C-alpha cells in the first residue's frame, strides 16, 4: 500500500543497508518499503540494532541505501536533507557554547538569518517551554544527560523544521519529565504541522504519540507489523495509557514485539 501513496513525505522504496565489517557484511536493514505521509507522526519500535536509526540516517541523507532508493517529497535523497531536523541519539551540543547559545545556533545561520532580538526572544520562549529556565548559562558538561537531551530538543524545535527525525530522544529521562515533554512535543508538532519519525524502545511512548506504529524485527531489520493508532486526538498523554483502547493496542503490538526483543537480546 505505501508504495502507491502518491504524496509521501518520506518514502523508502526497497531501501536496504549493509555495512562492511571485518569479515564480510553486516546487514542493518533488509529491503524495506515505507511511506510517511505529510504531517504524519510515525513511531518506529523494535529491539536494539534493528535498523531503526538506519532509516532515520537514510531519510536525513547521512547514509545512502545499499540497494533501493529513498525519496523526500518524491525527490531522491542524494545529499544531506536540510528539510529535516534530526535529533540524534547522541546529543551533538557544542561543548564551548552554553545552553542558550546552543539552542540559538540554527537561528544564526544565513539560510534563516533571524534578527538578534527576535532570536533571543524565541530562545527565551523555548527555554521556558522545555523547562530549562535557570540553566541558560550552563555549558553542556555541566548539565545532566536528561538536561542535555532537552537542550538538543529545544535546538531542533526552535527552527521549526518541516520534518522531525528523533532517535530515542527521551530515553534518559525520568518518567514524569518524559510525559511532560511528550505532551509538549505532541502539541508543538501538531501546531507546526510537522511530519515526525520517532524511534523508540518504549511501546507505550510510541502508542501515546503516533498515528502509526511500525514494529521492526531483530537484526537484520525488517518491518514486522504496521498498526494505525486510532486513538482520538488531541490525546492526554498523562491519561491515555489508562484507557481500554490503549491497553488493547499495547497488547496487540507487544505480541509482535516481544519475540523480536527476545531474539534481539541473544544476538
Amino acid at each position, binding site marked *: 500500500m505505501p508504495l502507491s501513496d502518491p504524496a509521501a513525505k518520506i518514502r523508502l522504496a526497497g531501501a536496504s543497508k549493509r555495512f562492511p565489517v571485518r569479515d564480510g557484511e553486516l546487514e542493518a536493514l533488509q529491503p524495506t518499503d515505507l511511506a510517511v505521509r505529510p504531517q504524519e507522526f510515525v513511531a518506529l519500535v523494535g529491539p536494539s540494532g534493528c535498523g531503526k536509526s538506519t532509516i532515520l540516517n537514510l531519510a*536525513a541523507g*547521512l547514509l545512502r541505501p545499499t540497494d533501493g532508493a529513498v525519496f523526500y517529497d518524491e525527490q531522491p535523497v542524494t545529499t*544531506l*536533507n*536540510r528539510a*529535516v*531536523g*534530526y535529533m*540524534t541519539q*547522541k546529543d*551533538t551540543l*557544542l*561543548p*564551548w557554547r552554553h545552553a542558550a547559545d546552543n539552542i540559538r*545556533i*540554527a537561528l*544564526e*545561520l*544565513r*539560510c*534563516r538569518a533571524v534578527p538578534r532580538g527576535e532570536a533571543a526572544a524565541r530562545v527565551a520562549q523555548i527555554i521556558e517551554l522545555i523547562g530549562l529556565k535557570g540553566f541558560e548559562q550552563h*555549558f553542556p*558538561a*555541566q548539565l545532566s544527560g536528561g538536561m542535555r537531551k532537552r537542550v538538543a530538543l529545544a535546538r531542533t524545535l526552535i*527552527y521549526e523544521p518541516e520534518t522531525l527525525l528523533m532517535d530515542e530522544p527521551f530515553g534518559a529521562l525520568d518518567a514524569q519529565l518524559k510525559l511532560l515533554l511528550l505532551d509538549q512535543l505532541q502539541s508543538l508538532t501538531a501546531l507546526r504541522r510537522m511530519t515526525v519519525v520517532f524511534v523508540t524502545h518504549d511501546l507505550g511512548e510510541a502508542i501515546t504519540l503516533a498515528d502509526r506504529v511500525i514494529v521492526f524485527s531483530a537484526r537484520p531489520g525488517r518491518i514486522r507489523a504496521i498498526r494505525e493508532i486510532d486513538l482520538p486526538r488531541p490525546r492526554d498523554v498523562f491519561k491515555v495509557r489508562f484507557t481500554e483502547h490503549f491497553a488493547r493496542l499495547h497488547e496487540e503490538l507487544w505480541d509482535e514485539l516481544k519475540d523480536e526483543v527476545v531474539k534481539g537480546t541473544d544476538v
Partner: protein
Amino acid sequence: MSQSQVMTPPVEPSLTRFVETGSGRLAARLLLIGAMLAVWQFVPGKALRFWMSGPVDIVTRLWTWIFDGSLWQHLGATVAAMTLGYGIGTAVGISLGFLFGFLPKLHRVLSPYITALYAMPKIALAPLFIIVFGIGIESRVALVAITVFFLILNSTLDGVRNVDRDLTQALSLMGATRSEVIRKVLVPAALPWIFTGMRISVRYAFTNTLLAELISANMGIGFLIEYYSGIFDATGTYAAILVLVIMSVGLTEVLTRVEQAMARGHGRA
C-alpha cells in the same frame, strides 16, 4: 612493633617544622644558596679561579654590562629573534593548518613531506639559514619560525581532524554552509589544540634561539656565552649564563600564569 608505633607520640623536630612554614622555607633556601656562593667565592685557589671565576666577579661583570648598555642590546636581540620567529611560525602554522584541515585531499598529497620535515631536527638547518640569510637576526628568526611552524601546523591539524564529525553533520543538517561549519564548529573546536601547541612551542622557540646564537651569530645571549667561552673568559661566560637563567625563570613564570588562566577558562567548557 606495631604497638610501639601506636604508643609513641609523633615527635617532629622543631627544625623540620620551621622549614614547613613559608618563611622557614625561604630562609632555608637563602642559606643554601648563600653557602654555595660562599664556597664558590672563597674555596677555589688561583688555578681553579681561571675556570670557575667567582660570584663577585660575575655580578660585577653583569653590572658593567647593564650600565654600558651591552646587556640590553644582546638581550633585545635574543628576545627579538625569539618573538619574531615565534610570531611568524605561529601565524603561518595556524593558517596552513586550517587550510590543510579544510582541504584534506591537499593534505593527503603533502603529508609524507610534512611528516619528514616535522621529524627532522630543525637545528640542522641553522648552517643553511646562515648561508641564505646571513649571520644577522634573519637566520635565527627563520630557524625559530620553522621550528614553531611545524609544531603549530600539527596541533592545528590535529585539532581540525579531531572535531567530532557528528557536530559538523548536525550543523550541516540545520542548513549551515561550509564556511559556517568552519566558523562555528571547526575553528572553535580546534582552538584548545592550537593553544596547547602554542604553549609547547614557546620553549622550543627559546631553546632554538639560543642554539642558533651559539652556532653562529653576532648578537644575543647565546652569542655572549659562545664569545666569552671562546676567549676563555669564564667570568663573562658565567655572567651570560646567569642572564639566561633569569630569562628562563621569567619565561616559565609567564607560561605558568598563562596555563593557569587557560585551565580556568577550560573549566567552564
